[in-house]
């Protein structure tokens, strides 16, 4: 993942533990954007795993389909950014349904394997269908360099920057507008999901999680509900994909490895299951730690530093599952994904 393997700003000097970065606005802007992006991704996982009881390991595929669909619609097809985004969300939802329709009938562990395989097919397609996706060169502009997928976003970003300046911030952080928009989306999504969960629809999802046979016995078409849950999660994944692409200013297959989905799971279980607000909390903590390790001048190479971050992700997953499977804010009684 290019964003994660990027070279740290400071060269590794033997044991000069400087915490200056902790007060730098650029550090928190970077952390905030990543945390917001992964919150959107993990909200989808929360809907699937925490509230419907389906273990979706294919979220990285949703991000990839969303980001590529948006970029291709803007650059290759020539649609406006504002039309391309909703269309890309719809395409990703359709992809989610396509995956879910045959595989949601399977047992939970088979479903997990099927979804990760589907996400990997997307990534290999992105790598190999060079004419469509630019392959391993990444996808950004057309060959003539006249149209880029984030042209419209840049002008929006400039407008927001203008507002910030007129509000008295003389030299705003370049990515600060993205941070604002990401968290605006996160806020809207959390509120919407929170209330959706209290509707009869949301209660059926929980019923399916608790006992699918019972829900079916009550005459509910459980497959349809599970598909809706998966499609909504796909839509959230597409949003996360847009923001990842805008943040990195490219769409590249390497940014959609299964790893991305598993970091999403670490975020999810850190915050806690069956709670939407906690996802944002988990994401901020996780990304503060992950980005923080890049700026602590540990006496190790950059490569070791990158490895260390994923060792942290792995340990987080293991220790949480061993000692606090419901996460920090999760409810133990809602942790029913047993046998």
């Amino acid at each position: 993942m290019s964003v994660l393997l990027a070279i740290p700003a400071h060269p590794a000097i033997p044991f000069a533990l400087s915490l200056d970065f902790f007060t730098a606005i650029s550090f928190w802007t970077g952390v905030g954007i990543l945390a917001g992006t992964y919150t959107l991704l993990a909200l989808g996982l929360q809907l699937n795993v925490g509230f419907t009881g389906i273990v979706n390991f294919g979220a990285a595929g949703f991000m990839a389909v969303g980001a590529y669909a948006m970029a291709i619609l803007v650059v290759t097809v020539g649609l406006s950014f504002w039309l391309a985004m909703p269309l890309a969300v719809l395409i990703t939802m359709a992809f989610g349904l396509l995956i879910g329709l045959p595989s949601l009938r399977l047992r939970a562990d088979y479903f997990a394997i099927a979804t990760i395989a589907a996400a990997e097919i997307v990534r290999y397609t992105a790598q190999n269908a060079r004419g469509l996706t630019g392959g391993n060169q990444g996808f950004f502009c057309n060959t003539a360099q006249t149209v880029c997928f984030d042209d419209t976003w840049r002008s929006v970003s400039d407008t927001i920057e203008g507002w910030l300046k007129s509000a008295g911030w003389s030299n705003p952080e370049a990515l600060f507008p993205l941070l604002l928009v990401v968290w605006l989306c996160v806020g809207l999504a959390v509120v919407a999901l929170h209330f959706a969960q209290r509707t009869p629809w949301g209660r059926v999802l929980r019923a399916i999680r608790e006992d699918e046979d019972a829900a079916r016995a009550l005459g509910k078409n459980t497959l349809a509900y599970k598909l809706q849950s998966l499609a909504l999660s796909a839509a959230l994944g597409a949003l996360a994909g847009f923001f990842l692409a805008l943040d990195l200013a490219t769409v590249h297959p390497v940014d959609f490895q299964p790893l991305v989905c598993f970091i999403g799971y670490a975020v999810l279980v850190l915050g806690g299951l069956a709670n939407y607000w906690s996802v944002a909390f988990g994401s901020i903590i996780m990304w503060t730690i992950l980005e923080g390790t890049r700026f602590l001048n540990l006496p190790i190479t950059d490569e070791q530093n990158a490895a260390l971050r994923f060792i942290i992700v792995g340990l987080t997953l293991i220790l949480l599952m061993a000692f606090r499977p419901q996460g920090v804010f999760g409810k133990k009684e809602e942790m029913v994904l047993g046998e």
Partner: protein
Amino acid sequence: MPTVEAGTARDALREPLVERLRRAEPVRLASSYPERTAVLVIALFVAILVARYGVHDVAQTGLNGLSEGSVYALGAVGLTLVYGILKLVNFAHGDFLTFGAFMAYLANVTWGGPLVVGILFAMVMTALLGVLFERIMWGPMRERGAGLLQLLLMSIGLAFLIRYSIQYAWGTEVRSLDVNSFATVQFLGLRIGRTELTVIIVGFVVLVAVGLMLRYSLLGKQMRALSDNLELAEAAGIDTSRVVLYTWLFAGALAGLAGVLAGAVTDLEPELGFGLLLPIFAAVILGGIGDAFGALAGGILLGLVIEWSTLFIDFRWKTAVGFVVLILVLIVRPQGIFGRARTI
């Protein structure tokens, strides 16, 4: 499959046993002879390929497929037994392969030992790695009655831990074992790298040994019995904790071997095993999850299908072919191509 005397077991389990025995009776669905149907379909596929591309090309790609397939099969046996016996979908299994490959690198390149020593060292160390995590992680978690999601995410955490500890220690630069990857062997007009040929031979010798051991040895029978029905096996007096331990030793050693073979054919890097994990899952599911013989056959078959696919699909897509096979099997025959319908 369960050959336990119902009488002794009934006392131990009373009610549930009756249900379990009833369920254990083979339920035959679409085809009453899945093995025959599978063999027939495969034979037809090969016949079409031969008619279209000629014997030479099919044999040549088939040879490559056997080399790839033996790696998958070795990885798949351990994964499927661990699933069958512990109901654990071990996402860290691929990284066991990586661990094995790097242990062989340590013995073979860093210490300068012969490759055979490297292979044995890799098998021993990976087997111990399996037992280590059984002792400190999986065993305690089972006692606490951990749920599916907990175990899944733990195995993913473990995968990260192993993979990135390897990256921490060895970095991401591509390394090779001390093998001559240029020497080729020619026979019957076919060409194969000497390393690949060694992989096929070693792979097949070990796979046959594994098959015989599972079929005839007491331990093998106990493993299959546990994989088939843990409670019944326990009720029949099998020391399950001992078998569980041997299963991890067995799965680890085979994963270590598979990792060395994969690393000998290609290169060593920390993502080596994770890249093999999904094809190994595909092999496991092809053969019917929990079925050790099925995993052997599934691995070889998958290797063949992937390599044969390069005859009519650009070779760049061959990794994706494995995933498509995985999804198709899950959709069409989740019980595996040789398996009979069970609880899926």
